[in-house]
């Protein structure tokens, strides 16, 4: 027990060190950009937002996953630092665009308008990941591998965009199936996590079966995490941002697919009024619970968490990175004490 606790403390310390390393390298990258000072400051605003978030939550996947996957294949995480930087820039850009669309910009943006935030998001998402990847040239990464990584970011970025589009589209449709909602989670967060894992793997090895195993691990992990976020948004706070924004997230779609007659109509009414104020959020939550939405979401999260475990096992990760990856995955659950704690 004491040994396990000591390992856990070491793992937390390592996560914090990775957070520091990635943000130091991103600070340097942004300072070296040939842009006007005000443009640079806009980028630094969201970099600070990201750093504060990562310090509070060092498990941040865009940082941990590429470094740990690289270490799980080669035994060394340091060469993957520019890749983790690229993943974190992409995450921050996508996060900023999300915040703009959902009208939830962090307080750090209070003194700036959405035009400036959009410019920063576009730069973070579109330009800076490639610049971070280009830094691999300094350590002798051959051009074909740089191209593989650049293409990977483009392909997965496109899938993430498709997921965002579905996120906007589903609330406008009369009938949305559970599969539509699952697919949206796969495209949005599945693609994002698949990118984080695959980028670390693609830098580390040429072996397609290893790269595919980590891609599948990331995809399943990301889907589980998206569904957890959907549930947390509804049940984890006094009011739900997704209900306010009229989103058709997984627990909501399940309830609409399961309830019949008057209960279904009542939920539709509640979802409509929940966009106007938080007054009816409790009643909407109660109806979602009555439909079994939370239980069902927990089941699907568990199935994807178990799939991710299987894919990770098939990649035979080296230690101690493998243990840390299992440990990250262990937290992707809505339920306590139901799955084994590691390999």
């Amino acid at each position, binding site marked *: 027990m004491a040994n396990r606790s000591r390992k856990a403390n070491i793992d937390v310390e390592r996560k914090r060190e990775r957070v520091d390393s990635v943000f130091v390298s991103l600070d340097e990258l942004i300072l070296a950009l040939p842009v006007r000072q005000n443009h640079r400051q806009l980028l630094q605003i969201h970099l600070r937002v990201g750093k504060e978030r990562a310090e509070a939550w060092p498990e941040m996947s865009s940082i941990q996953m590429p470094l740990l996957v690289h270490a799980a294949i080669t035994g060394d995480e340091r060469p993957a630092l520019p890749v983790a930087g690229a993943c974190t820039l992409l995450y921050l850009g996508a996060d900023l665009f999300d915040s703009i669309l959902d009208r939830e910009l962090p307080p750090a943006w209070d003194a700036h308008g959405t035009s400036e935030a959009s410019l920063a998001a576009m730069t973070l998402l579109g330009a800076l990941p490639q610049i971070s990847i280009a830094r691999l040239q300094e350590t002798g990464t051959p051009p074909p591998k740089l191209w593989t990584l650049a293409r990977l970011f483009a392909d997965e970025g496109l899938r993430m965009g498709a997921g965002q589009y579905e996120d906007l589209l589903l609330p406008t449709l009369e009938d949305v199936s559970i599969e539509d909602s699952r697919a949206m989670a796969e495209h949005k967060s599945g693609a994002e996590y698949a990118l984080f894992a695959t980028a670390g793997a693609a830098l580390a090895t040429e072996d397609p079966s290893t790269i595919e195993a980590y891609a599948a691990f990331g995809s399943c992990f990301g889907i589980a995490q998206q569904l957890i976020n959907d549930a947390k948004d509804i049940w*984890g706070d006094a009011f739900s941002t997704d209900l306010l924004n009229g989103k058709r997230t997984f627990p909501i779609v399940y309830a609409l697919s399961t309830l019949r007659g008057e209960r279904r109509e009542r939920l539709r009414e509640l979802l409509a009024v929940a966009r106007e104020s938080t007054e009816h959020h409790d009643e909407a939550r109660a109806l979602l619970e009555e439909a079994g939405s939370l239980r069902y979401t927990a089941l699907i999260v568990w199935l994807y968490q178990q799939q991710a475990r299987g894919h990770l096992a*098939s990649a*035979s990760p080296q230690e101690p990175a493998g243990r840390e990856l299992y440990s990250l995955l262990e937290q992707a659950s809505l339920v306590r004490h*139901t799955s084994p704690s590691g390999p």
Partner: protein
Amino acid sequence: MDNGEEIRLEALRALTILAVHDEEFRRGMWGDPEGTLTRYGFALNDQEMEQVRNFVFTVRDSLDEELFSGLTAAYR
């Protein structure tokens, strides 16, 4: 890795597809997971079945006892 602890990937994929697409399967899983899996042609070994049973029963029976870690606590 002790493979006996893991549910096989192909079984997990099939379970996920059914859980998303088949309402009757979903209902059956909460009431009688073992019977439902057998009816749908799954041949899980004892450890795999034990894992499925543990998860389903934990969720089904503990719903009202603040089962969901750090999630419903703030709301309830």
